[in-house]
């Protein structure tokens, strides 16, 4: 480029793109929107249309006659309410547990540790993401079982392992999803200028006050962002619950049993609307916190 360039030297198309933001936005948005807006949303829509269809039990083919039967079953049979409540409860507890564990770690990383330690800690916390989800779940199964590591550690305190069941499941899921909570909070806190903390201290605020009045408000949207991960990952899980959940089942199992074993896609689709509705409500609630931009 030289200083003597004039507008006439610009390639005309580039100039057009520069002058017309609308065209630029349109061209840039078309491929991702075709992919997500048409293909992905289309797939979801097709799934939910299927929920209104029936199934031929002998041949297993979907019969395209409209019926509300699947939703009627879903609403009138108690067990689906129980399973939904249990799943939401577990998702909420896992989320809270992860937030409580992740916050101090993220704060330490972002505002106390030296840059070198900071880097090492990020690596240390990302590494477990690479060990297979299944292998980690089975490792927890070994730890939670009778005579496993958990009861070894707990027995001197007069405690015992929670065994396989809801408690064990919550611990395992919280473990599996922890990195997804730590990273957004860490990123959020890193943006918080240290000068702000210093100002707070200079103005006489004690650590506790600084935490409450300065750090938490900044961390909150980040925590919410992390919670989208932990909440949705828990809502859709059906594998960990089979490994450490004892005789219990979650929404994911109900969907999986119907689509995988019974090949009843219409009913599975109807059950799948529950986690979708829950997640959409959740997203709508958290959108106001600005959390979605922290994902």
């Amino acid at each position: 480029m030289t200083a003597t360039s004039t507008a006439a030297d610009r390639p005309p198309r580039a100039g057009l793109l520069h002058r017309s933001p609308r065209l630029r936005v349109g061209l840039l948005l078309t491929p991702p929107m075709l992919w997500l807006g048409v293909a992905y949303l289309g797939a979801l829509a097709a799934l939910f249309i299927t929920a209104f269809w029936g199934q031929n039990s002998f041949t297993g083919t979907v019969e395209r006659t409209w019926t509300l039967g699947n939703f009627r079953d879903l609403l009138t049979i108690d067990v689906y309410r129980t399973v939904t409540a249990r799943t939401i409860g577990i998702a909420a507890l896992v989320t809270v547990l992860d937030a409580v564990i992740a916050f101090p770690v993220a704060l330490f990383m972002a505002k106390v540790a030296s840059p070198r330690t900071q880097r090492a800690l990020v690596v240390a916390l990302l590494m477990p993401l690479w060990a297979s989800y299944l292998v980690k779940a089975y490792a927890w199964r070994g730890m939670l079982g009778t005579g496993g590591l958990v009861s070894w550690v707990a027995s001197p305190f007069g405690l015992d392992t929670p065994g396989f069941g809801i408690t064990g499941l919550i611990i395992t899921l919280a473990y599996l999803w922890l990195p997804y909570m730590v990273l957004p909070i860490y990123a959020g806190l890193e943006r918080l200028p240290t000068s702000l903390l210093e100002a707070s201290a200079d103005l006489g605020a004690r650590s506790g006050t600084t935490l409450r009045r300065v750090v938490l408000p900044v961390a909150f949207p980040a925590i919410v962002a992390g919670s989208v991960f932990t909440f949705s990952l828990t809502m859709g899980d059906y594998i960990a619950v089979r490994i450490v959940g004892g005789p219990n089942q979650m929404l994911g199992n109900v969907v999986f049993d119907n689509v995988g074993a019974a090949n009843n896609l219409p009913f599975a689709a109807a059950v799948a609307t529950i986690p979708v509705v829950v997640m959409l409500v959740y997203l709508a609630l958290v959108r106001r916190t600005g959390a979605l931009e922290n994902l």
Partner: protein
Amino acid sequence: MTFSRGLRATLLGSTVLVLVLVYTPLALVVLNSFNANRSFAWPPRELTLEWWRAAASSEGARAALGTSVEVALLATFLSLVLGTMAALALRRTSFFGRDAVSLLIILPIALPGIVTGIALNNAFRTIFGWELGFLTIVVAHATFCIVTVFNNVQARLRRLGGNLEEASMDLGAGTFTTFRLVTFPMLRSALLAGGLLAFALSFDEIIVTTFTAGAQEQTLPIWIFNNLFRPNQAPVVNVVAAVLILASIVPIMLAQRLSGSSAGMTGAR
């Protein structure tokens, strides 16, 4: 210092505790890869190298690893392209559908995997008429990976503003030249961070993969799943996992070097 000594000590203490908690199961996995008992009973009574020998000669594991890497690379590439385009499009524009677009990009990761899985499975087979296979896995993975790139790039763009690009254009560079010489270098570390997260997401994904993979294609998580249920193979799975844990240090360290800042890992906001 901004925090009291007590608070800093507490934070340090909890971080150490969490690290111990995070690494205990992983250490157990490594230990179990030497455990002679086939259902890795605790405590191990006898140690063996048999599983490491078996794993070293497991063609299935190697092939699955190859498939996983290919899928993850392709899915990452697609999400880099699509995510960057979307982020650039939404920059400094406030058309009415802006929020809807953001929401749409987040949706595949925010909806439970099993929903995305059966929706895509159904669409691939009945609407598109595709046979499930390698490409369907890539498409499915790219769908939920776009968001990591999009968010990283968007955050970077927001921080940078557009002055340099304006200057470039005013000096006569075209849109594409400006992108190549100005915008792209500024985005590089954000792309790296987003891409790495996308790669990791794809690499260990099992639920969506279950529904979008044909019976022939095995990604590593699917191979692990299948082999946990073949006798004598479960301990081999521990070996594979142990190797993965150790090998994962390399890409993460590399990415850190390249991005040049710790924040690069999480998006350099």
